[in-house]
């Protein structure tokens, strides 16, 4: 403090003058800066003046300070008839912190996904038929949002229902080169995941993969290493 006031110009040496003379403008700017920084709410010019030493004029110091902060990470801004320091608008994104929470996919969602994967392209009605339960909008939306399924071509049947197919992101996530890599029913059965005996009434259908997704069928040639461009390096 004392040094700072001394830093003013020469003449006023006697005590009385130092007492009643306003601090130099640069010093006033520092004071305004500190007060605006530490205050819990915007501060009016009148209040700034009341808090600063006698003779100080915040009205003059404020524009100086505002200019000094131009282009900086924070700005001196006017809020009504008061002043405050605020984050520069373009840096607002720094005031967010993203937390990622990992959740397990719900049973409905994983089953729906599995049906799309094995039966694609598949309509909603078909999914419901296979699951035996209605498929909620939320489930489909979630899978689309996760970019694991997307809309495929419309089925050329009455009503032209939309179909669902899996995406490249789906393959990436599950570490598959192509949807063909999904273990077939036979393998699932061999693995004990499926009953050996054909379920009653589904026998023929289940015996071979005749109801299997077209995708698997009309996609010829086993995908060699040349397939799936850009994927090569994985694993």
């Amino acid at each position, binding site marked *: 403090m004392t040094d700072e006031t001394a830093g003013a110009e020469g003449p006023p040496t006697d005590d009385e003058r130092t007492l009643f003379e306003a601090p130099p403008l640069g010093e006033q700017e520092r004071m305004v800066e*500190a007060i605006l*920084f*530490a*205050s*819990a*709410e915007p501060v009016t010019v009148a209040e700034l003046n009341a808090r600063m030493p006698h003779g100080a004029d915040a009205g003059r110091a404020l524009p100086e300070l505002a200019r000094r902060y131009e282009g900086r990470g924070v700005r001196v801004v006017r809020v009504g008839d008061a002043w*405050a*320091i*605020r*984050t520069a608008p373009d840096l607002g994104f720094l*005031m*967010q*912190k*993203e*937390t*990622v*929470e*990992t*959740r*397990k*996919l719900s*049973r409905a*969602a*994983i*089953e729906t*996904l*599995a*049906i799309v*994967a*094995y039966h694609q392209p598949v309509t909603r009605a078909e999914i419901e038929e*296979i*699951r*035996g339960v209605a498929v909620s909008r939320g489930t489909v939306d*979630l899978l689309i949002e*996760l970019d694991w399924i997307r809309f495929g071509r419309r089925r050329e049947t009455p009503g032209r229902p939309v179909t669902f197919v899996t995406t490249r992101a789906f393959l990436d*996530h*599950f*570490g*598959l080169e192509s949807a063909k890599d*999904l*273990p077939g*029913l036979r*393998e*699932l059965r*061999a*693995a*004990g*995941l*499926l*009953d*050996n*005996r054909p*379920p*009653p*009434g*589904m026998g023929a259908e*289940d015996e071979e993969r005749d109801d299997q997704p077209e995708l698997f069928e009309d996609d010829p040639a086993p995908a060699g290493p040349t397939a799936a461009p850009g994927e090569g390096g994985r*694993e």
Partner: protein
Amino acid sequence: MTAFLQAEPMAGTTDDSSGDSAGGAEVVPFAGHGGDVAARLAAETLVIDVDGFEGPLDLLLTLARTQKVDLRQISVLQLAEQYLRFVDEARALRLELAADYLVMAAWLAFLKSRLLLPPDPAEDGPSGDDLAAHLAFQLERLEAMRAAAAKLMARDRLGQDVFARGLPEAVERVRRVSYTATLMDLMQAYARIRTRDDFRPYVMDRENVFTMEMALDRLRGLIGFAGEWSDLTSYLPPGWEVDPARRRAATAATFAASLELAKEGKLHLRQADTFGPIQLRRAERSGGDGA
């Protein structure tokens, strides 16, 4: 304190025991015996203020200051005598001194005798001078800490001299949910759907026994898809996960099978800690190197 003889358990005075242990808060008239009045008065003040001391070391430090010398030149003998006189006077005034003040008095009496008597060659243990030097060190150290504390408290302090942002901007937390599912989840989900109509998973036909052979067959089929670490329990056959007896049998068999496959180099096993979940993953095909 524990340094002072083994005489008595640490007791009595704690740093904020103001009032309860050392009686004389009220001013007690001091019956003088003549002699140096100023010294008497000083001692009187000390006695009356006994509550104000933070233990015997603090009292000793105050007494040491009356010697008006650098603590390094202090006469420990003289200090011991000052302290003993203080205790006597407190007794004369029937002030009750806390136990550790008395322990210190006993120790100082012992120290005094050591300092005054010629060393007994038959006796080992620290010499009087060593003990005195240590006491002087303790006093100096305590004083140094007091000075340091004062310097610390005299600094520019947050909320007194220096201020933080008065209007902090809250960091907005954006929660993003990421969903996970493994290939195994997917396959199991599909298998679940395909067996649902049946209501007769084949395992129901058997006893509650799941053999290792069965588990091996099963695992061999599945392991190729276990590219990522996944829980052993996720390989339990459907229909065996719930009933405790069946679950136990299936777990044991699957575990045994996984050991077998690990031995064959087909998969890797890991367990983070004892009784932690056991996880498995297929072995990369490169490997002649065992698990």
